[in-house]
């Protein structure tokens, strides 16, 4: 793909390797651990520990509200986070209200709960231990509305049953019935929604899950305003390790460990080329 010109020195050629070699090398390095996982070690970071602690410290029977706004195209980055977290909820006898804030998220919620997490396998019953509320485009004002009047935003669950007829929801209609807010989002600046609408006005305990690139935006709020956060599949893997719930994150982490090496090698070659051209003369 590079242009043809006069004969080039070794240094120049090192800096102009066809990108497709970089692509191919990275692909090969990623495929190896998928075929044969190594189980390389994972260090659990402080925000993940805080996240886990915020959940397991809740007394059994506490209510968690999960504001769920994930997208189908971003599932690779977040699936490990959801699955591990939801398993922890059911393992610790917490009651969970899932509410969907993005069109795709209802599809993901149903798929992951029914096919992977399977609350019934923990002895949990729908309507008694957890509920699923459908998609509504909440945004920040919608989050504020949910915290003050759940029925105003979600009159029914995803099956069309009025909330008043669901045993678990009988006495819950606003933030007073919620013990922990779990905010899940993919647009980095949305982190402020949970701070402004749950933490500041009601002093609610909050945890968040988001994309890897949104970690920088979430970090300033930890640990004062949010008790912990998972950004990206790497931290999803950390939670899998910490909670003893192996899941999709482990293979991802192995493949990441190796997959990045191709890029690092090319960065090295690029710099050797630069230094060589500057100080080495003709190669």
């Amino acid at each position, binding site marked *: 793909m590079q242009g043809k010109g006069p004969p080039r020195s070794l240094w120049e050629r090192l800096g102009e390797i066809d990108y*497709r070699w970089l*692509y191919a090398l*990275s*692909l090969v390095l*990623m*495929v190896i651990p*998928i*075929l044969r996982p190594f189980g390389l070690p994972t260090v659990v970071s402080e925000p993940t520990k805080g996240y886990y602690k915020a959940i397991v410290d809740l007394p059994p029977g506490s209510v968690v509200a999960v504001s769920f706004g994930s997208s189908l195209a*971003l*599932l*690779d*980055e977040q699936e490990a986070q959801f699955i591990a977290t939801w398993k922890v909820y059911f393992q610790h006898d917490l009651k969970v209200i899932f509410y969907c804030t993005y*069109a795709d998220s209802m599809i993901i919620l149903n798929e992951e709960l029914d096919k992977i997490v399977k609350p019934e396998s923990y002895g949990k019953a729908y309507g008694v231990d957890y509920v699923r509320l459908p998609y509504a485009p909440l945004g920040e004002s919608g989050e504020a509305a949910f915290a003050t009047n759940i029925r105003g935003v979600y009159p029914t669950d995803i099956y069309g049953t009025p909330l008043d007829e669901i045993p678990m929801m009988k006495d819950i209609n606003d933030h007073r019935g919620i013990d922990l807010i779990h905010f899940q989002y993919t647009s980095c600046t949305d982190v402020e929604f949970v701070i402004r609408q749950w933490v500041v006005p009601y002093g609610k305990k909050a945890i968040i899950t988001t*994309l*890897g*690139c*949104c*970690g*920088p935006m979430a970090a300033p709020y930890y640990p004062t305003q949010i008790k912990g956060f998972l950004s*990206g*599949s*790497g931290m999803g893997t950390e939670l899998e390790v910490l909670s003893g719930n192996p899941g*999709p994150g482990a*293979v*991802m982490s192995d*493949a*990441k460990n190796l*997959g*990045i090496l191709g*890029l690092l090698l090319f960065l090295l070659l690029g710099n050797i080329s630069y230094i060589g051209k500057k100080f080495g003369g003709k190669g």
Partner: protein
Amino acid sequence: MKVNFWEILGAWVGAFFVISVMTMLWKDNPYFRFGQQAIIGATIAHMVLFNMKNVINMALIPISKGQLLLIIPFILGLMTYTRLLKDYAWIAKYPTSVLVGVGVGVMIAGTLRGQIIDQVKATVMDVFAATTATDTINGVIIAVGTVTAITFWIFTREHTGALGMSAKIGRVFLMISLGANWAGEEVWYLTQMIGRLIFLIEVFIKGALLGIA
């Protein structure tokens, strides 16, 4: 294992499109071009479906129930189509004006506090609300970064002398920030790539092709 026809077909169709997109990294080819044309049709239909649903739920049903004011935005929406008629194209300026007017109002209100006043406040508090010496030093570094970065965007003076030095320091801060942003996104995309490879290997090759999932 019970073989589900639709799951297997889904794996084939999914793999077809995944590989189609990936081939563009190699070079342009008819397979990629076909996939690209297909997805244009699919996404426009997806958008049309959701938007039509919004028009029905947010305008037509309420209008039929007597909320006649909603005729105005509906007509404004229809006015955008005058762009297709040479002599009446100017009518499309009306919906644009309403949208931009509302947009500018929302923007001014949101920007003043969130992106200016609160940022100034945070810069001061990073220094003075710090509880340890390290946090104070970090706060000072952040303040230096903020101020020098702003000086980089001063256009009415040439960047020489003290302003030049400040702008240069600001540029270093900006570059570190750009590098960190690159890294945040690169690792996320790496995960996405691995996810697609897992799909191709586990779901398509092992599941649909070899039947050993």
